[in-house]
């Protein structure tokens, strides 16, 4: 039996969280999603700190990362993950409203695995999130943790 791993959704806007979860639920992936509301919480989760001290020692299958967030933004989180020996293998998908090139360029320089502009149209958004969830959470094999 395939052991399902979590999907870490880093998103400050609850409306986007709800819509994303709606989209993932269509593929029964919603249960696997852990949601944190900014970069700081995301790092605590990944490093088993703060409220995530006691959680099971396991990296998420994929991190869906919003760029624009308070405290620590998506780019900073990506940078921290890629600099961390234990975390750098986790696939990161940028989810963003922005079509601005500097973000895109910066993200790829930091080793993002995918970059998705959230479409205004909900149907398109649903399609995108579904694909991301299925591909990264279910199909993609990642190297074993050290």
């Amino acid at each position: 039996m395939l052991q399902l791993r979590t999907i870490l959704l880093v998103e400050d806007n609850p409306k986007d969280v709800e819509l994303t979860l709606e989209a993932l639920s269509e593929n029964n992936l919603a249960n696997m999603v852990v949601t944190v509301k900014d970069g700081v919480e995301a790092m605590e989760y990944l490093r088993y700190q703060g409220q995530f001290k006691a959680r099971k020692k396991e990296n998420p299958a994929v991190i869906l990362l919003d760029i624009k967030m308070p405290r620590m933004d998506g780019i900073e989180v990506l940078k921290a993950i890629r600099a961390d020996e234990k975390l750098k293998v986790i696939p990161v998908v940028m989810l963003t409203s922005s079509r601005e090139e500097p973000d895109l360029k910066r993200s790829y320089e930091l080793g993002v695995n995918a970059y998705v502009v959230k479409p205004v149209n909900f149907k398109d958004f649903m399609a995108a999130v579904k694909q991301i969830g299925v591909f990264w959470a279910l199909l993609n094999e990642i190297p074993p943790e050290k």
Partner: protein
Amino acid sequence: MNNLDKSKEELIIELNELQAENKSLQEARNKDYTQLLLKSSIESPIDMIILSIDLHYQYLFFNSFHHRIMLKAYGKDVKLGMNLLDCISNVDDREKAKKNYDRALNGESHITIEEYGDIERYYYETRYNPILNDENEVIGATAFSSNVTERKLNELLSLENTQKITSQNKVYLQLYEELAQTNDELRKVKEKAEEGEKKYKLLYDYNPMPMSIFDSESLKFLSVNEAFIDKYGYTREEFLNMTILEIRPDTEIEKLKQSVSLVDKGVTNAGIFLHKKKNGEIIKVEIIRHELMFDNRIAKLVLVNDVSEKIKAEEGLQKSEIRFRNFFINAPVGVNGFDAEGRVISVNSVARNYFGVSETDPLSAYRLFEDPSILDETKWKIKHGQVATEERYIDFKAIRQHGMYMTTKSDQDKIFVKLTYTPYGADINNPEGFIAIIQDITDRRQAEEALVQTSKLLDITSSIAKLGGWELDLISGELYWSKETYRIHEVDISIKPSVASSQSFYAPEAKKQLEAFVQNAIEYGIPWEYELPMSTAKGKQIWVRGKGLCLKENGKVIKLYGFFQDITERKQAEEALLKSKLLLSETEKIGKVGGWEFNIDTMEQIWTDEVYNIHEVELNSNQTVDKGINYYTNECRPVIEKAVQRAIEFGEPFDLELEITTAKGNVRNVHTIGKVDLANRRIYGFFQDLTERKLAEDKIKVLNETLEQKVIERTAQLEEAVKELEAFTYSVSHDLRAPLRHINGFVDLLSEKFQDTLPEKGKHYLDTIADSTRHMGTLIDDLLQFSRTGRQEMHHSKLDMNTLFQEVLKRIKQDVSNRNINWVVGHLPPVVGDYSLLQLVWMNLLSNAVKFSSRIVEARIEIGVKKEENEYVFFVRDNGAGFDMQYAHKLFGVFQRLHSAAEFEGTGIGLANVRRIISKHGGRTWAEAELDKGATFYFSLPKMEVEGRL
């Protein structure tokens, strides 16, 4: 005159050279020592009588000793041409002599010892020789005779003593004393003989001429003198083992043998021979010899005279004479020689023609000078190193008639000649005569005279120079004006001028000046010169220049004369020059530029006015180069000194900006430029006061600096603004899209999940909300696109416009696949530009065309290009709704729309974006349209740039 290419001066020079050569050659010839030597040996202290007679016993020659002896012995003062026998007063002696000479005259050489003399008697040993001519005929006889009395007496005494001893033994002792006495005398004789030998040595051994004595038979040298040794290079010992053959080249041996085989009759000039010295050098010698007895052998005394030089000299002389003759005879000018008294002694053919004399005519009848004083003058001139020449008419007809040169005044048969005299003879101060070169200069003279006589020509000449003349005879008071002087005064030539009237042309002050001049000239003989304005008889104002000179006679001024010139034009030019100088100095002042110049050698310096001004020194005050350099400040002085030094030494120009301290202590920035003109030994340049310019420059510098600061500030502000704009755009992009997405998302969820429970009206509301959010999304996206276009960097490359266009067209066609559109696409040229941006242009324009033709059943969209001179004009033409041209200016503005949303959807950003992109490519955008008849949108791209990059 035929060949007169050679000027007369050249001919004279040549002639003089020939003369000098001639003279030196003559001197060389005089150095013929032969005669001298012969004479000295004949007048020798050996006391040898030498004489020769002809067949009639008449003296041909005798030496002084013979003369003396004859006087002593017979009291006869002999002279050449006398009969020798007649001179011998003693009959016995005459008989003896006749007998001996007759033998010689019969061809026999013989020696006798006989007693001669009337008053005193002596024994003479005499050798008689015949004199032979070339045909070996006897033409006379020679006698060489020495006084041998003492020797003879000695012999006789010895004989007598022997007799006495043998026959008269008794008286032997008695006679002993006598004998002793005689012996004493004998010793004396011997001593005398030795003395003679010494004398001989003096003549022979130390004679400067090479002499030798050789055996007539064996040809062996018996004796040689020092000069002989010197001449040939052998030692005396060597010579005494040699024969005379050994000092001859082989070729001469035969000739020599023949020569010595002849019997010499007295002193014989054997002729010229070639001799060979020890070092092999061949010399040409003249041999003088005579036979004598030497050590009881018949020998020959030879005197050698080296004639190599003499022969050379003679040959040279000969050549020179030939040259001289050639010159004399063939000279293309007349040449005649005449003696010191002016008698003609030779003429060449040209001169002969002048004189009209034939070659056989005697010349001495002709004289060169009709006036003897001319001859004296010529001599005087030559003596004082002057070229004696004269030019005069000679009437050769008169010469022919009268045998004398005659000056003539008639035009008939005269020629004008130039005579150039040159003396000849060894002593230039006392010449033997003269050579005159006669040159016919009639043509020249006639031309000169013609010129002098053609007063018209002179007038023209003087009028060209505007030079008039005048003359005032102080005795008669008459004033003469030349034509030009009349012309200058504009006075009719018939009016006679006077001193008073001539001064009336001047203004009172000038008049006074003139009067003073004339006064001084008359009283003190002072010449004068002036430049004054005057008004002519016709009232014309002119400037004149005058010059006056005085003619004195017996210390008194009798005549004033001078010239008179119209210098108005020159004055005008000078004034113009002055004006232009003023202008220059004004220009200098305005430009604060001056000029300077100095002479490298004299270090004299010239400054223009402005240079003085810049230095703040008085105009034209004395400013030397050193002083000028001292105005430079301490830092600048070495720089200018070095520059000036290098300019002088190497001709290097300089261009410097330096500082000076003016005479008034102001520091000024100056620009000095120096150039070198080494040919004229001067350095010149200009000098500029930069102080004001420098101040202005400083101001500009400050302004520039503040400007830069301002630019930096502005740039910072702009950068800030751009950042803000970027942040704003980012916010729009991110923050505006998010709520829109949420609305959209939840509306979607609502209409899907509650489809069954929602009433129709509720569904309609939800559709409207979804529509609005979609429109807002498009607006935001277009706005973002527009803002990005402005900021986006351009990536220029050469593009195939056709491919680029077809990609866009493909996308558009997909969107409107349900429509029936007639696309007309022309071939598009390649361009240079940004690929994605130009695609956006086509996208916008095609979208519009599609959109606004949507209500047309048969839509037609045409795409093409017009090739202009410098650009391509692309266009998109549709047959759709079009628009009213009065609103065309609004077309390309942001959010500007000419149609309502109900008619045609749109955000009003597309065309604004097109314009922005095309502008960034250096092109233009515009549109033409008519309402309901379609629209054409144009954009241009520069062709030049396109081609440049292809």
